[in-house]
Structures are given as structure tokens and as C-alpha cells.
């Protein structure tokens, strides 16, 4: 065995390693393409796979078939085909748009490989019959020069994309490949320079390509993990919002149905038993009918955007107090004759919410509803003598979906969230504090009767903060999609 043979064998082994590394890098690129769908990675993956697959057999077989002169037979032709295929795909990748849904990198690589092998076979047969290959070192050298130019040109294309770090590394690798090709061209012409250098250079490129592809993939994987988490989270929020929407709608329908049933019942009772009911009862039923009708209106006209008006607090709340007292609640009213500016119906809805809460969380407790003027504004307080709300929960209770933890009953937790929204929409607010002596005190503020109408700079309507999930749901709602 001569030194030349040993060197050739060494070169052969390195080439096999190169081909394997290129294929590995190709697989990494294709995996990345799978995750992000960006066309450049798809094309680069296809290019690397095709290059590896096209160069592997010639690296393996060349020494075996023509061990005396491997460089001058099978290897060059298949190399030329491989490089051309690779370059075509790389350039396409560099020019590709962000996402190409028709791209199938594995199929592209397989097609390029099969086509390349066929082309190689034809080229070798033709070349062998037309003239013996041995004598044409000049031809090969010329071909290598052309390939060098190809590598160099694509390197230039890649390096021109200055703001793209992955293109930068691609450019460096392509430039190194160009250098290796040049060395190989020189090796054809002068016996002194060894093809070993070229192969070693390619090994460096193969290694760097694997490293780059790996790094890219890791980066995508970690950011993909975050993205999946965020997506799951958003999905979760969206579902929750849709659930709440559906529940809200269901509750409103249910409300409307029972209000209608009550209206029918009351009017029929009035009609049928007119003579047998005393005047006080009839009067009570009639006034209940009226307040029930406005309740129906509020249920149907989801917070119709009427302009705020000035209204007397005690008069607005009187029907509610009657109804809640009949439900067993003890209410002390200290409203005086104060007026406020807002939407009376919504204000009453909020107070009703608070009374129902008091009935539930402070059972048996007296509930006091009072009011006082505070500068330009009016404060209405609703206080009970129940367990109160721990200070750390006082903001939390206004969050969407909040429920007190001891509560086992089903419910949407929309009560106080909606209450705050309703109050803020009419230029007021709601907060909760501790009642001196124990219990919860909800404080509702509204612009006073002397204040200028809301919508002017004096009483700004607090904008609702919107979450991402809101933005997802909104278009769905607009299209009438139901949960």
C-alpha cells in the first residue's frame, strides 16, 4: 500500500463523514422548517440533504471502483451534479418568501437526488464512450472553476443580506465551499497540491453547517415552547370568555323568561280576581308590574346607552327595597333626598347585586344603604354586618370570574365585575372597604347632580382595559359566532 493510497483512503473516509454531516444538518433544517414553516429553512434542508445524498455514494464507491485514479472518474461528475443541485436549492431558498405552503423539502430533496443520480449515470456512460476520462484533467479543472464561481456567487447573495445573521453564516460556509472548490481545481492542474486540503476544508464547512442548523433549531425550539405555552394560555382565556358569554346570555334569557312569567301571572291575577283583591294589594301588584317591565327592558336592552340623567337615589331604589324586603332582607335606608347623575336603571341593578350578595354572604344581617355628598360627587354605601372581605381580596372581588372560596354554589362570578363596569361606564366607580365595627361596606360613587354631563372632560368615562383574549373574541362576536 502506497502513501497515496492511504491518503486517498483518508480523503474517502472524510468525504463520507462530510456527506453524513451535511445530511444531518439537512435533517435539522427540515425539522426547523416543520416547526416554523419558513421556506428558506425548507430549501436549505432540501439542499443539504440532496448534497449529502448525492456525494455519499461517490465518496464511498469511487475508491472501490477506480482505486488508482478516483479523482478522475466517478467522483467529479457526481460532485458537479451534487453541487449544481445544492446551489440551485440554496439560491431558491435565499430568494424564497417567508412561508411557502406548497414547499415539501423531503420530496424536493428526494427528487433532486434521484434526478442527480440518473444524470450522473448518463453523464458517466456518455463520457466513457465518447472519450476516455483520464486525459481530460483540464476539463475537470474548468468545471471546478465554474463550480467555484457558483459557490462564490451564492455566497455573495447570502452575505448581501446584512441584517440576517443566519444568512451571514450561510454566506461564510458558501464562501469556504468556494475556496475548497478552488483548491480542488488547482489540485487537478498541479500534482503538488493535494485534494486532501479541499476535503478538509469541506469537513470544516460540514461541521459548521451542523452547528449552525443545531443552534437555529434550539433557538426555535425554546421560543416555540414559549409560544405553545402562550397559545395554550390564550386558548384557555378565550374559552373562558366564550363560556362566560354563553353563561351570561343563558342567564339573561332565563331572567327574561321568568320576568315574563311573572308579568303574565300578575296581570292575570289582577284581571281575574279584580273584585276579590283589596285596593292596597291591587296597587302593589300594579306598581310591581311597572317596575318589572323596566326590569325586562334592562334585561333585553343590554345596558342601552342612554345618556346619564339626574335622578333621586331614594326614589330609584324604592321598588328594589320593596322586592328585597319581601325576599326576607332587612334593609335600613339612609338615602335622604340626594340626587346623582347616571343611569338610574343600571345603578339600581348594581345595588340589587350588592343586596343579593349581602343576603348570601351575610345571612341574617341588617343591610344599611345610605348616601352622602362628597364634593362634586355622590357616594352611596351599602353595608352589612357579615364577615366582611379580607383586605387582600378587596380588589380581587372585582375581577372577572372571581368567587368567594367558601362558596360552593354554581355561579358565574360576573356580579361585581359587571357592577364595576356598569358604574365606570356612567362616570362613577365602586370599591369595597371595611365597615367600622365589622362587615363589608361597598361604596358606589356617581357624579353629583350639579356636575356637568358625562362625556365632557369633567366626568371622563373610564376606558375598559382589554386583554388579548378580548381581541380574539370580539371579531367572533361581531360575526355572530356563539360559544
Amino acid at each position, binding site marked *: 500500500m502506497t502513501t497515496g493510497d492511504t491518503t486517498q483512503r483518508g480523503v474517502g473516509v472524510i468525504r463520507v463523514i462530510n456527506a453524513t454531516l451535511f445530511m444531518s444538518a439537512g435533517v435539522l433544517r427540515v425539522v426547523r422548517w416543520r416547526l416554523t414553516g419558513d421556506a428558506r429553512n425548507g430549501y436549505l434542508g432540501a439542499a443539504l440533504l440532496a448534497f449529502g445524498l448525492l456525494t455519499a455514494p461517490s465518496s464511498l464507491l469511487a475508491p472501490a471502483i477506480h482505486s488508482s485514479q478516483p479523482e478522475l472518474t466517478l467522483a467529479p461528475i457526481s460532485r458537479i451534479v451534487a453541487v449544481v443541485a445544492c446551489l440551485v436549492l440554496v439560491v431558491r431558498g435565499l430568494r424564497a418568501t417567508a412561508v411557502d405552503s406548497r414547499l415539501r423539502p423531503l420530496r424536493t430533496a428526494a427528487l433532486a437526488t434521484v434526478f442527480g443520480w440518473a444524470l450522473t449515470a448518463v453523464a458517466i456512460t456518455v463520457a466513457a464512450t465518447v472519450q476516455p476520462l483520464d486525459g481530460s484533467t483540464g476539463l475537470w479543472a474548468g468545471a471546478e472553476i465554474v463550480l467555484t464561481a457558483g459557490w462564490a456567487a451564492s455566497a455573495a447573495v447570502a452575505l448581501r443580506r446584512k441584517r440576517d445573521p443566519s444568512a451571514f453564516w450561510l454566506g461564510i460556509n458558501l464562501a469556504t465551499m468556494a475556496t475548497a472548490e478552488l483548491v480542488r481545481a488547482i489540485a487537478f492542474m498541479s500534482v503538488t497540491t493535494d485534494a486532501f486540503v479541499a476535503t478538509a476544508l469541506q469537513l470544516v464547512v460540514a461541521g459548521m453547517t451542523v452547528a449552525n442548523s443545531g443552534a437555529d433549531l434550539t433557538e426555535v425550539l425554546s421560543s416555540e415552547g414559549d409560544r405553545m405555552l402562550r397559545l395554550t394560555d390564550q386558548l384557555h382565556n378565550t374559552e373562558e370568555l366564550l363560556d362566560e358569554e354563553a353563561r351570561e346570555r343563558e342567564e339573561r334569557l332565563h331572567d327574561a323568561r321568568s320576568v315574563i*312569567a*311573572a308579568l303574565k301571572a300578575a296581570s292575570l291575577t289582577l284581571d281575574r280576581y279584580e273584585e276579590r283583591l283589596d285596593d292596597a294589594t291591587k296597587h302593589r301588584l300594579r306598581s310591581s308590574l311597572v317596575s318589572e317591565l323596566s326590569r325586562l327592558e334592562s334585561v333585553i336592552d343590554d345596558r342601552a346607552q342612554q345618556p346619564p340623567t339626574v335622578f333621586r337615589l331614594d326614589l330609584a331604589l324604592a321598588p328594589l327595597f320593596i322586592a328585597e324586603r319581601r325576599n*326576607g332582607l332587612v334593609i335600613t335606608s339612609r338615602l335622604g333626598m340626594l340626587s346623582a347623575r347616571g343611569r338610574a336603571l343600571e345603578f339600581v341593578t348594581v345595588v340589587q347585586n350588592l343586596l343579593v350578595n349581602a343576603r348570601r354572604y351575610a345571612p341574617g344581617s341588617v343591610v344599611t344603604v345610605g348616601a352622602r355628598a362628597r364634593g362634586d360627587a355622590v357616594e352611596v354605601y351599602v353595608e352589612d354586618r357579615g364577615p366582611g372581605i379580607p383586605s387582600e381580596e378587596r380588589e380581587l372581588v372585582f375581577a372577572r370570574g372571581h368567587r368567594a372560596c367558601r362558596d360552593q354554589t354554581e355561579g358565574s362570578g360576573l356580579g361585581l365585575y359587571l357592577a364595576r363596569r356598569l358604574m365606570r361606564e356612567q362616570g362613577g366607580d365602586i370599591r369595597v372597604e371595611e365597615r367600622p365595627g365589622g362587615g363589608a361596606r361597598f361604596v358606589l360613587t356617581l357624579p353629583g347632580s350639579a356636575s356637568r354631563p358625562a362625556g365632557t372632560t369633567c366626568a371622563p368615562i373610564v376606558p375598559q382595559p382589554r386583554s388579548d383574549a378580548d381581541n380574539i373574541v370580539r371579531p367572533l362576536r361581531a360575526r355572530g359566532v356563539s360559544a
Partner: protein
Amino acid sequence: MTADVVMVEDHALLADSVSLALQVEGLDVVRAPLTSVEAVVEAVQAAAPCLVMLDLDLGEIGDGIALIPPFVALGCDVLVVTGDRNRARLGQALSAGAIGYVTKDQPFDVLVGTAQRACAGERVIDDNDRQDLLAELRRVRAELDRRRAPFEALTPREQDVLDHIADGKSVETIAAEFYVSTATVRTQVRGILTKLDVTSQIAAVAKARRAGWLSKSHR
């Protein structure tokens, strides 16, 4: 104070009207205070009526169906008065011991008439209708059981992990919270996916939601 009928109804005007109508028809009616479950049961016990007219959606007190057994135990007939047209739920009320039902969209006369007949000890429900409702209840329950069966197969720890995944937490976070290795959590996640016959965590969460499985905090 005894009465013939106790109304357990959270809609003041409806309760008022029905009470007035029944009183005019010669029945003593009282309304139970809706402050708590105990207060309602106490009021019924004190009144010892022949009939309780019960709304199924008592708003803040919760599901009226839970009140049926205690009322039956007190020896009362329970007539369900509801706006709910869900037939499985009506079936549930019947199987809990209610003698019949009136939906709120039926004419007021039907409501009053049914209450009167119930008080007189007459049957207020057609046998076919009753069988239908109970069959519907069985069907819905079977469907629910079928959907929940794969979740019953989860170990308590896997259920915890599923809850956490539904919260959008990563395997790493869950592992840190449970003081176990990520490999352990991954094994549990694989267990969940296998038992639920799904291929991704998102699919598992979606399936759990659809089956109504996820614990209260997620609903």
C-alpha cells in the same frame, strides 16, 4: 303558622301573584324566605303544608333540586315550577321525588290549576310524560358517564397534572411545584395522553373541558 302551600320562588312578583290567586281560590299560601337553604327548610317544616311549589333556579341559594329530598322527608308533595325547559333536569327533579312540574311558559291558569289539583291529592303528571323524562335523564347521565369514564381512570396525581396543564403551565413548572423531576411529570403526562386517547396536551385539555371534568376553578 301552618299553611296549605309554601312557595319557594325567587321571583317576587310571580310568587306574589301565585300566592294571591291561590289565596283567592281558598288556599293558605306562605312564601319561604330565601336567605339560606336552612331557612327555607325551616319555613317549610314550620308551615307543614301539603304542597311545596319549588322553583329550580333559586338564584343565590342554588339548585332547587337539592331541596326536594328534605321536603319529601317532611311529608310534603313538591311541585316544580320552573323556567327551565331542560327535560333531563325535570327528570332529575322527578327522580328526586317531585310529584310533577309546571314550566313558567305555560299559561297562568295551568299553574294555578295544577297547584290546586296537587293540593287536592290528584295526580298532576301523565305517566308517559314521566317515563319520558326519566328516560331522558338516564340517557343524559349515561352520556355523561361515558364521557367521564376515561378521566376516572386517571390517578389522583395525573388529575392534578391535568389541572395544571389546563392552567397553561409547562412540565418544568409543574415539576418544580410538585418537587419532582421533569421526567416524572413527563411520564404522568404520557399516562394522561394514553388514558384519554389523545396525542397532545391541548387535545387532553379540550377533551377534559368538553366532558366537564376539570375541577371547579377552571369552569
